[in-house]
């Protein structure tokens, strides 16, 4: 092949479809790839999981159909790559284990690290494509001065996906294109319409893609049952910060830090989950102000704009997808760990989520909250 083609990761949604259209318009040789990650019919109808998966969930037949139609429309070769086993091993299993351990996982980051930017890149390179392009909203550019690939927040701040991309290695960034980083979502939709892409008006997907209906507790129950595994008994007490018993619960996997609904405890003032103890199964409830924390610890770190954190650094830290990054001082702390000390206490620092550190628009790096 004269020039190496670009492999476009196509989900069937408007963003990745527009990436394919953009690159095709520029005349680049492209190949469309869809990762088949999860069989949406697998647990359908079990434990209240909907019988019919909605479009906009990963790998529903409709989404693969949409991706294929876009590829046909653009006249590009298109293939579906089966990665269901790896997705189950590297994303679904850890997702279940994290909840059972009293933490609140982010499957999207795991999927990006293991599937989209690892397996997909490997598949792309093995079929002769040196680069992949995705529909993520992020900016990725090489900085000569530092000799590093830099990941930056996109022009459309409402669509910023850098939080889920902090795990990308320099090697992965060097082979990845984010063509939508400097576009706004309305402009993307407009371009999709202009390019005749049928999914131009398809709604954005919001929930966890492999959990139709969004009920993760039902998913965990149905998944373990399918695997012939028993849901570990993690029932325990609901207690106050002072240790007073407030009630009982059926399992720690039903809780996440900051949760207010479904606690089964009546109180004159709103109560929130402020701590989950996986050892004693105690779930501590408290008032809103008890949720605030000044420090967080994180491990399993990945650095992007710096090679390593050697000295304290002023950053803004983002602790969940919908969190406005807050000023903090970041310090190395022992082997492979950092501590971020916020200027102002932050609400609901949640183990299992990731902490991503920013310097202006640049992603410094990130890790997983302990």
């Amino acid at each position: 092949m004269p020039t190496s083609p670009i492999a476009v990761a196509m989900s069937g949604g408007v963003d990745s479809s527009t990436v394919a259209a953009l690159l095709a318009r520029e005349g680049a040789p492209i190949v469309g790839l869809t990762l088949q990650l999860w069989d949406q019919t697998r647990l359908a109808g079990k434990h209240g999981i909907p019988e019919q998966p909605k479009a906009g969930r990963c790998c529903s037949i409709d989404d693969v159909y949409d991706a294929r139609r876009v590829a046909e429309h653009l006249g590009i070769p298109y293939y579906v790559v089966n990665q269901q086993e790896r997705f189950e091993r590297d994303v679904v299993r850890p997702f279940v284990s994290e909840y059972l351990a009293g933490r609140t996982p982010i499957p999207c980051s795991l999927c990006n690290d293991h599937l989209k930017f690892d397996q997909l890149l490997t598949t792309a390179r093995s079929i002769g494509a040196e680069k992949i392009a995705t529909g993520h909203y992020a900016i990725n550019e090489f900085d000569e001065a530092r000799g590093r690939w830099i990941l930056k927040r996109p022009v459309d701040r409402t669509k910023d996906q850098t939080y889920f991309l902090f795990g990308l290695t320099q090697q992965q960034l060097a082979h990845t294109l984010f063509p939508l980083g400097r576009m706004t979502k309305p402009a993307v939709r407009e371009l999709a319409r202009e390019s005749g892409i049928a999914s131009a008006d398809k709604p954005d997907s919001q929930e966890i893609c492999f959990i139709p209906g969004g009920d993760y507790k039902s998913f965990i129950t149905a998944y373990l049952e399918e695997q012939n595994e028993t849901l570990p008994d993690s029932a325990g007490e609901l207690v106050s910060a002072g240790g007073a018993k407030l009630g009982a619960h059926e399992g720690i996997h039903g809780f996440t830090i900051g949760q207010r609904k479904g606690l089964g405890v009546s109180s004159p003032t709103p109560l929130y989950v402020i701590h989950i103890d996986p050892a004693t199964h105690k779930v501590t409830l408290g008032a809103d102000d008890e949720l605030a924390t000044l420090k967080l610890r994180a491990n399993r770190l990945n650095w992007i704009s710096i090679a390593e954190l050697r000295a304290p650094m002023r950053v803004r830290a983002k602790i969940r997808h919908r969190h406005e990054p807050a000023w903090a001082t970041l310090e190395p702390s022992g082997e492979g760990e950092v501590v971020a000390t916020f200027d102002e206490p932050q609400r609901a620092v949640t183990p299992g989520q990731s902490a991503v550190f920013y310097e202006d628009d640049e992603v410094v790096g990130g890790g997983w909250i302990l």
Partner: protein
Amino acid sequence: MRRVYFDANATTPLLPEVVEAMRPYWIEHFGNASSIHQPGQQARKAIEQSRAVLAEFFNCHEAEVIFNSGGTEGDNTALFGLLHPGDHMITSSIEHSAVLAAARKLATHDIEYTFVDPEPNGLITPESILRAIKPNTRLISIMHANNETGVIQSVEEIGKIAANTGLWFHIDGVQAAGKIPIDVKQIGCHLYSISAHKVHGPKGTGAIFVKSGTPLESLIVGGSHERRRRAGTENVAGIVGLAKAAELAMHSLADGTIDKLAKLRDRLEAGILALPGTGVNGADASGKIAPRAANTTNIWFRDLESEALVIALDLKGVAVSGGSACHSGAVEPSHVLMAMGLDKTRARASLRFSLMKTATEADVDYALSIIPEAVEHLRRLAPVAAGTRG
């Protein structure tokens, strides 16, 4: 870009003679074969002439040939049309899903099945069939040639068992048609299904041989077409195309074309086996392979994933297959190879090459100029160490 098509077991193109034979039946001779008038009689004549060709193809009476929509319908009809609640049937774990899914569906209607596993070389032994027979067994359904490996089953032996035990015997001959001579009398089967598009005929047309006296109920009910055994206005052009394709297939078997095809396949196979870390699936320790259809070889490649190799080869113009596609188009490891005892990693590292009878030396040369480099590139970039693939 040059394109080489080595996926004949998926489908084949119409030969020009087939297109020419079909052409008049779309426009000039468009009649409904059930009509009384001349246009209807013209269509009827075309169907009955086609039936005579198929009778020769199967070596049966004309009245024993029913036209239908293809292999899946034939397979479904055999199972759904013969079995009743309380019955038991025997088939193999390497059948096409048209048989396997039909058997599983029948199981929800109180009809039992036994899936017999093949030997590591892909052959179903007659003894294993014999062992599976129960007092309520009514039907044996076995494929003649396997779609993934090309391995040809000992259908005559199984036919004898069926005769001795008074069981019905259906053969899924979709992958055998055109590749080996078919003689339903000699085999001693009651039903034999074929599909036109695997033998350079049109998609959506097929035929099933039904031995006279077999109490087969129609899967599709309606009018009294096909002697009340398959309702629906006949696909006249399709039937004419099937007959022409069957006629050409008989010529190819007689004039040495298929023998030449086997030599081409052998040359392709030898060229690939010259690469390190390759082997024919089903071959024993000494390299011996069960009898196979002339056009098929199934080869594993150590340390790679066939999915990526299929894509890489396709982008270079060589079309092959690496397993069966599920609903989304993603590839699942072949259930046939798994049933032969291959582990998942090896089943996932296997490719099927199936040549058309129109394949040329130049096609094989081109493929052999592409495959080694693609395999080496893939092994270098994406080594599949044991266990990394889950």
